[in-house]
């Protein structure tokens, strides 16, 4: 009798039979066990959604920007859920639109820091020796300056617009990122499977991309979330002292600054942006902690 069973000869068919157990699923499961982290994630997702749909939630020109002096300093009521500020603008609308700036600058500045700092850090960590020394000493020079100061210097010199802010804050985080990536790379570099890769003939580039970087993602992702929180705080600080986003563009920091004078009798005017900053940063920190715990292989069986 003829053997009618088909012989599996392709990789695809094998893979269909024996599915890969995704590591992401395991990490996700671990993450979900941490209730606080999940809350952080949900809050952050809400903030992102608010930022994306800002124009749909509150009209920019009419509510956030348009000065309406007779309407000033109204307490929270049915028309203005968070009240109005000293120039009659709807605080809720300004918070909603302010979230865009915070998130955009926060995320993009960290992206800048990650790419530049990450590249330098990876090279320094992988090659060690003189290369490491040179790169790290350059980074040290920048590390000496407090974050805000460096950003201040750039903004003062080149002007305060969104792009400059992104670059300024990004550059101020670059040395920190380079350190994180460098130490992650150095840790992994010493592990035997890297040596094994070299033994089978991988080039340096192949080793860095295929073996080292994928195993560094864990600590890097955690740092990313934490630095986004820092960046948002930095933007707000800069705006608070007047060197960040300028009026009339709503930004949580400059809202704090302009509302300060009226704080005593109209607390809501600073509480709203203050809380917005607080909740955003808290959610990112919870998220970051949750990620770090979920990615820690030691916590596994």
């Amino acid at each position, binding site marked *: 009798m003829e053997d009618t069973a088909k012989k599996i000869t392709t990789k695809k068919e094998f893979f269909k039979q*024996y599915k*890969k157990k995704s*590591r992401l699923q395991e990490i996700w499961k671990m993450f979900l066990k941490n209730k606080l982290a999940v809350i952080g994630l949900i809050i952050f997702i809400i903030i992102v959604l608010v930022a994306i749909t800002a124009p749909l939630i509150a009209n920019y020109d009419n509510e956030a920007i348009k000065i309406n002096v007779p309407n000033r300093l109204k307490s929270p009521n049915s028309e203005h859920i968070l009240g109005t500020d000293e120039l009659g603008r709807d605080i809720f609308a300004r918070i909603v639109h302010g979230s865009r700036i915070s998130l955009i600058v926060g995320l993009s500045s960290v992206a800048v820091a990650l790419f530049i700092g990450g590249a330098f850090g990876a090279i320094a960590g992988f090659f060690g020796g003189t290369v490491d020394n040179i790169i790290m000493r350059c980074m040290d020079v920048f590390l000496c300056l407090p974050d805000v100061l460096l950003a201040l210097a750039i903004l003062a010199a080149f002007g305060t617009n969104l792009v400059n802010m992104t670059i300024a804050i990004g550059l101020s985080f670059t040395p920190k990122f380079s350190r994180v990536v460098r130490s992650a790379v150095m840790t992994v570099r010493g592990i035997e499977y890297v040596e*094994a*890769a070299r033994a*089978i003939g991988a*080039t340096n580039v192949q080793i860095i991309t295929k073996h080292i970087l994928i195993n560094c993602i864990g600590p890097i992702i955690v740092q990313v979330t934490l630095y986004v929180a820092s960046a948002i705080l930095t933007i707000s600080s800069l705006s608070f002292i007047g060197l960040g986003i300028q009026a009339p563009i709503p930004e949580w920091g400059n809202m704090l600054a302009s509302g300060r004078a009226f704080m005593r009798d109209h607390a809501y005017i600073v509480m709203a942006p203050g809380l917005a900053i607080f909740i955003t940063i808290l959610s990112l920190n919870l998220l970051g902690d949750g990620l770090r715990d979920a990615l820690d292989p030691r916590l596994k069986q």
Partner: protein
Amino acid sequence: MSNTLLEVKDLKKYYKVPKGMLHAVDGVSFSIEKGKTLGVVGESGCGKTTLGRAILRLVEPTSGSVIFDDIDVIKLNRKKMRDMRKDMQLIFQDPFSSLNPRKTIAQTIEEPIVLANMIPNKDERFMRVLELMKTVGLAERLINTFPHELDGGRRQRIGIARALAMNPKFIICDEPVSALDVSIQAQILNLMKKIQREMGLTYIFITHDLSVVNHFSDDIAVMYLGRLIEKAPSETLFLNPVHPYTKALLSAIPVPRIHNRPQRILLRGEITSPINPEPVCRFVNRCNYAEPICSKEEPILREIEPNHFVACHIFAK
């Protein structure tokens, strides 16, 4: 065409440390014939691991030559060395850290083939991976599992499959079974012997476990503080060890027997520092037979009977 596959000549690896020069491997020479196994034994700090890495140029030797198939490997440039790696492979000690935790078994075994571009066709390549898995006794259904899902014995089999992927002529096995349970050790050792017979491989077997090395090697080289102090065929070494260190080493092995227990030779003191060693016998301050000449001159490796080499002033006359 000679039968010698590998010849190591006066191989040295020194490391610069704050206190001076650390002589990890200090002028080691030996040769191995095709299809044979050389066991390299010694305790921590003797340099056997560094020796293995230096032969494969995973650390760059300070001086000396490694002649593999009539080519001095040390002199090759980076690209040619990478090509050479197809023939010279390494099996690692720790089955936990020698596998990339983010790659499946299939990916790990496939990688050397991909890097060397030996089988461009995806499906053919995959068939080769399955073939390798079969050779080392890994079930097909494990192709998409990750290392952390498997036990030490299976992980070590993956390491072996990876080493075999490019059809090498020569494999250095760095303590391949030390991290495994006794019952699994036996399985893996049998497997490695079988593969050697079937594929005509030549092995260097690095270990600190003397009972295992006897079972597995044709010749054994004993290292102490970076130097080769005795080399002989396995049976000869165990029946007639000459160097005082070899004698002490063999007598120190705990024997799983309660009758006729052998007399223990106890060594005094501890191993001396490999940093800036004096040009005298490295073993002198622990040796029960030391004489004045031992503190003045370094002994050279001499052939005292066919294939039996010893470096000792007193016993290698």
